[in-house]
């Protein structure tokens, strides 16, 4: 018996099995681009309407859009690409998702099984290429393995510390026939993510928190990915302690609440970094003490503090900083348990100590480290973000690219809800902003979606303006156009004696005409007095994609700044220039 022809009426093709699996997983959108090795699958897509296929203009954007969809919804994002160049184009997207622990299933076509290893047309070792930047990957060698493998792929992507999973499917496998049976559950002896934290450790952590004189709560992307924002808010409010979020964690704790001291790290607020450096008990939740967050670890160690770390991934604990009380578990489960213990608790935080700690923090706040000098003529980029926050009432999905504009977005758009701030924190991938906005707008069709970007970044996936038109996505692009690769220019100003090597963006297109040529509305905004009106006008056009080109101050820098390799409290502030 072979599996090249259906043996019974119950047998369907591998390509159809792929579609049926996606339906079983209740996938709503597949972001992709067709090509030779996935033609059987695309033929089956043509015949179904359970999910919508979003045709991008470059495979990188397919993965980014699927990634943003996952970030915005919490569901697994799905991308489909062909073999060879389709697969390699997807790699940047996969690595971006991997660094930020985003659950994705990327299905790539592969050349037919007999051609593998023969240097066939459009052949690339996708499993080999992606191995270092996926949570796991598979090469399917038998049509009967498609369903169980995809089941495992979705399970691995979404559980534990989430991440992208690549499933490489040779073309001939999608043409073979088998009976479709989707497994109800997954059992893997080698993969058993931990859910519940150690109760003894949780008790110990709570005791330390209650005895703290200068407590601090520091949360990251893991809190957002673990959907534990509500639990954290409950805990933080009950304790009355200061909270900071990392770049990836923004929205995990409401930014407009008084207990929020702002983002920390390289471009964090003065008060967040000082409180982080000077606290005596630190509760870290779903954060990983990376180099952009705590700066020089040696400097961070110079102050004595007790650190409690809750994380689903044991390898994140004691990686860069020694942890005193590790708690491995799902953040939501651990924080709930902590909240339950706190309700039954008779001890209370040391009110006097907490009061004087807040007084200290308020002194740091008086530095007003995010104040910038506004100008009546030239548009300040910070001002645009502040106005965007006002006009959208803080309720938009905001995506960004990478660079100065990303930091201003993070500093000045006050995120009150998780899953609203979508950016590439770990890999720092320029070009994510527009495809990220596509993923968000599809996830939330009625929501306001703003893509804050720079003129360098936006050109890295500009072709997606076409996708946005095809699917009528009413995104608003907020281009902070300073005619420089701003963050590169800032480092060159600070550390390379103003030698602006290759950081000027020459020969920029006319962005208004560019937008118009793709069927969108373009706007040039050149004076600060016009910023608010233009934003209102754009957001009033609820069903149109508007490309807003803000001509901003060329020399504006991001402050505060902890120079690379320096300690958290060694910030350069705006006034120090």
């Amino acid at each position, binding site marked *: 018996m072979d599996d090249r022809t259906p043996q019974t009426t119950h047998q369907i093709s591998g390509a159809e099995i792929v579609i049926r699996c996606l339906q079983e997983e209740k996938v709503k959108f597949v972001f992709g681009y067709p090509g030779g090795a996935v033609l059987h699958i695309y033929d089956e897509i043509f015949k179904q309407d359970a999910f919508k296929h979003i045709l991008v203009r470059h495979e990188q954007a397919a993965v980014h859009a699927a990634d943003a969809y996952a970030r915005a919804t919490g569901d697994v994002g799905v991308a489909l690409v062909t073999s060879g160049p389709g697969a390699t184009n997807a790699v940047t997207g996969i690595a971006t998702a991997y660094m930020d622990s985003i659950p994705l299933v990327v299905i790539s076509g592969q050349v037919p099984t007999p051609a593998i290893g023969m240097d066939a047309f459009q052949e690339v070792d996708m*499993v080999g290429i992606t191995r*270092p930047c996926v*949570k796991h990957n598979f090469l399917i060698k038998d049509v009967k393995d498609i369903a169980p493998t995809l089941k495992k792929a979705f399970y691995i992507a979404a559980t534990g510390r989430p991440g992208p999973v690549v499933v490489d499917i040779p073309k001939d496998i999608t043409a073979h026939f088998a009976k479709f049976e989707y497994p109800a559950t997954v059992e893997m*002896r*080698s993969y058993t993510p931990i859910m519940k934290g150690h109760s003894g450790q949780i008790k110990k952590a709570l005791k330390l928190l209650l005895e703290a004189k200068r407590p601090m709560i520091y949360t990251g992307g893991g809190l957002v990915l673990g959907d534990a924002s509500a639990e954290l808010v409950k805990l933080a409010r009950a304790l009355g302690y200061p909270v900071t979020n990392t770049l990836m964690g923004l929205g995990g704790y409401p930014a407009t609440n008084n207990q929020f001291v702002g983002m920390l790290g390289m471009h964090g607020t003065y008060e967040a970094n000082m409180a982080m450096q000077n606290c005596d008990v630190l509760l870290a939740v779903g954060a990983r003490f990376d180099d952009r967050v705590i700066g020089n670890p040696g400097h961070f160690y110079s102050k004595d503090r007790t650190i409690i770390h809750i994380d689903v991934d*044991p*390898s994140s604990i*004691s990686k860069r900083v020694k942890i005193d009380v590790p708690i491995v578990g799902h953040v939501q489960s651990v924080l709930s348990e902590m909240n339950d213990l706190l309700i039954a608790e008779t001890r209370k935080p040391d009110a006097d100590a907490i009061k004087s700690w807040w007084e200290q923090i308020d002194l740091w706040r008086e530095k007003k480290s995010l104040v910038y000098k506004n100008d009546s003529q030239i548009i300040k980029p910070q001002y645009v973000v502040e106005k965007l926050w006002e006009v959208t009432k803080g309720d938009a999905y905001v995506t960004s690219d990478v660079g100065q504009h990303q930091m201003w977005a993070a500093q000045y758009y006050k995120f009150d809800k998780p899953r609203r701030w979508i950016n590439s924190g770990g890999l720092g991938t320029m070009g994510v902003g527009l495809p990220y906005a596509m993923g968000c707008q599809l996830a939330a069709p009625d929501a306001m979606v703003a893509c804050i970007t720079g003129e360098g970044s936006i050109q890295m996936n500009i072709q997606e303006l076409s996708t946005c038109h095809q699917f009528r996505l009413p995104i608003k692009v907020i281009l902070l156009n300073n005619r420089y690769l701003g963050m590169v220019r800032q480092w060159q100003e600070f550390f390379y004696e103003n030698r602006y090597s290759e950081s000027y963006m020459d020969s920029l297109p006319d962005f208004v005409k560019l937008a118009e040529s793709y069927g969108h509305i373009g706007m040039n905004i050149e004076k600060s007095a016009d910023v608010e009106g233009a934003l209102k006008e754009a957001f009033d056009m609820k069903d149109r994609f508007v490309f807003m080109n803000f001509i901003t101050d060329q020399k504006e820098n991001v402050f505060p700044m902890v120079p690379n390799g320096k300690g958290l409290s060694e910030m350069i502030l705006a006034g120090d220039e």
Partner: protein
Amino acid sequence: MKHIISLLMENEAGALSRVAGLFSARAYNIESLTVAPTEDATLSRMTIVTSGSDEVIEQIIKQLNKLVDVVKVLDLNDGRHIERELMLVKVKATGPFREEMKRMSDIFRGRIIDVADGSYTIEVTGSCSKLDAFLEALDKAAILETVRTGASGIGRGDRILKI
């Protein structure tokens, strides 16, 4: 400090490269690595000899555990264990060397497993340091070729790595 890490992993294509890739991607030291299927053909057992500070070894163990194909990881240095490596050495066996090589092999409890006109091939097993000592003891001019398997390790007594 040198550590011997034992692990059980799914006996699947690519599993070895996941481990090797992890070590190179994270710049961990790898002195030797041996792998073969166990009595249960769905599982492979791997022994990795590595070195690093306690923090680095802790990270290596955690990162290995994180690999989806890895079922169990054990740092043999956490308890009493036995380590064995096999080495084949081809040495000159002419003139005075012919007698001396036989004597050295006996001292190290090696076995001569191939005899040719001008050479012997000696098989020696033992800890890595014993094999090092054997090579040290030989006259450099006599060594024609060496091949080593890398260490295999197992816990003593009740320490068992099994699923």
